[in-house]
């Protein structure tokens, strides 16, 4: 598949085609799949030879292994979509020594070591905190004079979860009361069970909103709400903006969807190209994302140009 790296002198093969190593998370559906497919496509279009290496259940170790392998393969550039925001210093140092430019996508990584910092050319991706803030503001707008509700989180400890949480904290209005935060592991049917449980538990407190940290969970919550006959009475806000979620907004199951835009393959490919052509791409390429209420969702869907 990857003729590029096969010639023993590594990436820059005779064909002149550049080889780029993509340290990825792997197809997990929703945002992740859309994002990685888009990047793969974009690099193919840009004439790169992209070598793709996913991990399993978010295991950073396997990513580090892949990263180091790319360094040894002497690829021309490495794209790093890390599961963790730290622990990359050593590997980045290797990359720096081998003079391989590294581009972090989606999640930014924090680097202590100066040597290592050099390796990172730019970061491309939308902001999780921003998304969290949008959620808080939407709820504030929906319930100007306060409301009770829940937060459905991803698996405890992932930095996405923390960032989206932080965003929410930053902007949440004082009269918005979170009765309980539970993890539903990004999973639709767990979200349904959990929400059903929470609705039972807090009937008395009349919960009015649910902030689901991703679409999958939001959709599950919506079904629980529906089953409890509270459709419309409980407003659900979710992050990601997958097609299913937009449909749900139009259908009124969800109140509001904040996009976490996975489509930035072009931008990434461009940045890599610039770098390899000797230009210096910006250090932080922000991918702006949209937000969808029912109306916006409808137009977006009808326009038919959404890739996922």
């Amino acid at each position, binding site marked *: 598949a990857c003729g590029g790296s096969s010639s023993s002198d590594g990436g820059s093969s005779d064909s002149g085609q550049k080889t780029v190593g993509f340290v990825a998370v792997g197809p997990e559906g929703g945002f992740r799949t859309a994002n990685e497919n888009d990047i793969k496509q974009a690099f193919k279009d840009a004439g790169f030879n992209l070598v793709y290496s996913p991990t399993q259940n978010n295991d950073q170790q396997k990513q580090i292994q892949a990263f180091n392998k790319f360094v040894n393969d002497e690829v021309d550039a490495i794209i790093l979509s890390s599961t963790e925001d730290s622990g990359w210093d050593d590997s980045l140092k290797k990359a720096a020594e081998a003079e391989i430019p590294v581009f972090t996508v989606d999640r930014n990584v924090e680097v202590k070591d100066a040597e290592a910092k050099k390796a990172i050319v730019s970061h491309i991706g939308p902001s999780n905190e921003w998304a969290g803030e949008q959620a808080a503001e939407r709820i504030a707008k929906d319930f100007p004079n306060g409301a009770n509700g829940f937060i459905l989180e991803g698996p405890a400890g992932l930095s996405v979860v923390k960032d989206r949480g932080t965003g929410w904290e930053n902007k949440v209005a004082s009269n918005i009361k979170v009765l309980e935060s539970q993890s539903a592991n990004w999973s639709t*049917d767990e979200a349904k069970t959990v929400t*059903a*449980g929470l609705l*039972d538990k807090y*009937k008395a407190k009349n919960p009015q909103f649910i902030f689901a940290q991703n679409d999958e969970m939001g*959709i599950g919550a919506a079904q629980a709400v529906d*089953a409890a006959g509270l459709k419309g009475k409980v407003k659900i806000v979710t992050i990601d903006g997958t097609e299913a979620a937009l449909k749900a907004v139009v259908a009124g199951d969800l109140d509001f969807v904040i996009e976490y835009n996975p489509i930035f393959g072009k931008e990434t490919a461009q940045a890599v190209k610039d770098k390899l052509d000797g230009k210096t791409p910006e250090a932080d390429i922000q991918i702006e994302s949209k937000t969808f209420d029912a109306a916006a969702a409808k137009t977006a869907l009808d326009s038919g140009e959404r890739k996922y």
Partner: protein
Amino acid sequence: MAAAEKKDDKNNVVAKLLGNNLTWSVVALIALIIICTIVDHQFLNLSWNDNTGGLAGPLITMLQESARYLMIATGMTLVISTAGIDLSVGSVMAVAGATAMQLLTNGTNVWVAILVALAIGLVIGSVNGVLVSILGLQPFITTLIMMLAGRGIAKVITSGENTDASQVAGGEPLRWMANGFILGIPANFVIALVIVIAVGLVSRKTAMGMMIESVGINQEASRMTGINPRKILFLVYAISGVLAAIAGLFATASVMRVDVVKTGQDLEMYAILAVVIGGTSLLGGKFSLAGSALGAVIIAMIRKTIITLGVDSAATPAFFAAVVIIICVMQAPKVHNLSAELKRKRALKDSQKAVAA
């Protein structure tokens, strides 16, 4: 303990009861329910919900969730009874779910979708069966491999997406299977219960149960009595595959969407716990489907408790572990033989004094 004072024959009855795992499982279940009720006084309330056409309330949602555990625990029980193990049930759930959802979105008739999903479960189970029985591979590693590969298969089927069939028309029967009600009781729970009872009857009314146990206890001796261990082994893994597929349908149909990574994740562990709590030994041999069923409900109940108590999501695994440990410790012979043991020691002391004198 009460047992200590009672007279011998009575004493035996009590001892038997105390020695019986089922007793302790029931105790555990009740304990959990009590705890929940204390925290949330509404816990036992049942109301009628018109727009689902069934009962509603914490216990109902608990039963609804337990259905899938019932399925995989039943299959797991038979496998474990042959001194094997099936780590692939979680992945099979994902595959079956993925198949059904994908087919639905491609406009296949819902019944066809269901059948194909079950068929795929059967196929994967059979592959396990062949590898274990014909090639004589070790069950643990075989099904571990299938657990890895299964996830992959699910992803291939949906090409990595979390296929969503909630908008698809014609999915009602499947949706009903997971969310509907029969006489106010969750349909999936009823279905699961019926299947468990069916399996129970087949295995106990025919010689299947005994032969499975026999193979689990002593394979060579079984062969010498004319039993064909290979057939038996193949059978249990195949069954486990199908039941896991049903569980997968329950899990996905409840939201009409499969999650290639999360659907069925870690459920093999829950199934194994259910089986062990139910009193079937991982070393194989005697099995108790009733026990496993109870175990399955307990697992669902533990998860319910976690939500009801609002245990911080970070702490849930620890809480889960704590409960499991407590249950297993309660079941340990050491514990409920305590009184008897003390009595024995005392008796021994006396008789030794007697000797000395």
